[in-house]
């Protein structure tokens, strides 16, 4: 007897049909942007930083470009997955209304939510892999650690995607999205430990950064790419990252079910 395809994977195959139309543009923008940062900051600012006595020690004994590279993989995953969990999710309920279409089939809210999670992990993985490929061409950033760093980027991606999805499926208006971008995503991008060690920042800002999953992902990814892995730390950081994804998933399912099956 044939085994039925799990519901979330059926939802993912729907996402794939859509992505097939848009992937070139999508991949290009989510690849070009981190590359610009890598060149502008890693190479430009890096030349200044690396010349400064003692800076390499502060960065954990690596060049600036090697320090920034894993951070960029994580921040890119965060940015892509956060954006994909705002308007596209609200559109599924309100504008394209395809979530309602799915709700009329044997699939239900949990299939849509888990499908979104898998799809977001894939998107983060695809962009992460693209950035990793580019990093493999640079002497200072070439390492086998790029492979596990891609997986860390996937975890960071869903850690942002799922709580934001939980917000998006309950929201009536899209006015909150720019606020999330301005007050969470962009500050984390700047102060989340991707471009300099968190220790450079005031205590309060450090706690802000530690509360969100990005910094934890950056630390783990950097450990892998610079070959300085503390496994107990890895487990703790990843558990915290995945906790965000899990809580977001549970709330998303509950709120989406209420919207789809009133």
């Amino acid at each position, binding site marked *: 007897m044939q085994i039925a395809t799990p519901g979330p994977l059926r939802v993912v195959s*729907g996402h794939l*049909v859509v992505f097939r139309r848009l992937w070139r543009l999508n991949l290009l923008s989510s690849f070009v942007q981190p590359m610009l940062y890598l060149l502008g900051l890693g190479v430009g600012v890096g030349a200044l930083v690396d010349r400064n006595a003692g800076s390499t020690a502060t960065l954990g004994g690596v060049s600036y470009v090697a320090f920034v590279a894993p951070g960029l993989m994580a921040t890119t995953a965060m940015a892509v997955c956060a954006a994909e969990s705002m308007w596209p999710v609200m559109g599924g309920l309100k504008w394209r*209304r*395809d979530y309602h279409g799915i709700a009329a*089939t044997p699939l*239900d809210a949990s299939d849509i939510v888990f499908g979104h999670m898998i799809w977001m992990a894939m998107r983060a993985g695809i962009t992460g892999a693209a950035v990793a490929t580019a990093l493999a061409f640079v002497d200072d950033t070439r390492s086998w650690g790029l492979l596990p760093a891609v997986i860390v980027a996937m975890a960071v991606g869903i850690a942002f995607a799922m709580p934001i999805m939980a917000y998006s499926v309950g929201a009536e208006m899209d006015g909150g999205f720019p606020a999330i971008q301005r007050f969470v995503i962009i500050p984390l991008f700047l102060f989340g430990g991707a471009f300099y060690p968190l220790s450079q920042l005031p205590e309060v800002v450090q706690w802000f950064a530690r509360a969100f999953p990005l910094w934890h992902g950056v630390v783990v990814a950097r450990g892998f790419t610079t070959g300085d892995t503390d496994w107990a730390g890895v487990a703790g950081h990843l558990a915290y990252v995945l906790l965000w994804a899990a809580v977001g998933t549970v709330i998303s399912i509950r709120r989406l079910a209420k919207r789809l*099956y*009133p």
Partner: protein
Amino acid sequence: MPEPLIVARGLKKRFDDFEAVKGIDVEVQPGEVFGFLGPNGAGKSSTMRMIACVSPASEGTLRLFGMDPAVDGAKIRARIGVVPQLDTLDTELSVQENLWIYGRYFDLSRAECRRRATELLEFAQLTDRADSVVEHLSGGMKRRLSIARSLINEPELLLLDEPTTGLDPQARHVLWERLYRLKQQGVTQVLTTHYMDEAEQLCDRLVVMDQGLIVAEGSPRELIDQYSTREVLELRFGAGTNDQFGPQVVGIGDRFEVLPDRVLVYADDGEAALAEAHHRGLRPESALVRRSSLEDVFLLLTGRSLAD
């Protein structure tokens, strides 16, 4: 008598403090085309959503294929097709991509999705638009695509919520003809509409709903026979004078009704009623004798005031 496909007993739907459906009993037999008629806000769509297993009943029992939606919602949904009131098509994708995606939700293989999509595009007369992006289709084409999509799982029951609202007459007739074909293939259909001609054309049996309750039930013919006369005489007097002349038709036919723009006289013999009106010295600007329609029944039962 085969087992009814849908059985509802005392079905109610409440939203917070508003009761949209106030306890209805419905049975739909396999192969039947069944209609819910009613003004806006009568509870038709809420009822349809409960039948589609996307809205739990607040009270009463509902069974489809002998199963309870609260327990076997997914199993039931696998056997029905839904054409929603608002299209849920992905307008950025092509016509066939919409069908493929939907087929995947029912776990059809990619090859099977393609095979059925080709067939359904033929059925929906959209074959030459297969690669068009949905956004560029006309309203009628989008509706036909919605119907084609709802058939991708070869449903035994098709639910159509106001399938032709907003379409031009040509598009409606094309749609009706397709729905008639489905009926001939034995697909049970349940639809809502507020077009009386649509109900007369399509439905074997229907219920009229008003304010959350069923107020009449039967075939279109039975309802007309029961609630109206065989014919209706329409008299148009000058603008603003219908009120004044209306009462003078008292006693002609079974009953009469004064509308802002005309006076309706319900009579089994319309020509005789017209002769009597002339005999009484009434000189309308125009007079028309027509057969009674479901619209007369509908307006009698649900009133002429705007529902919202």
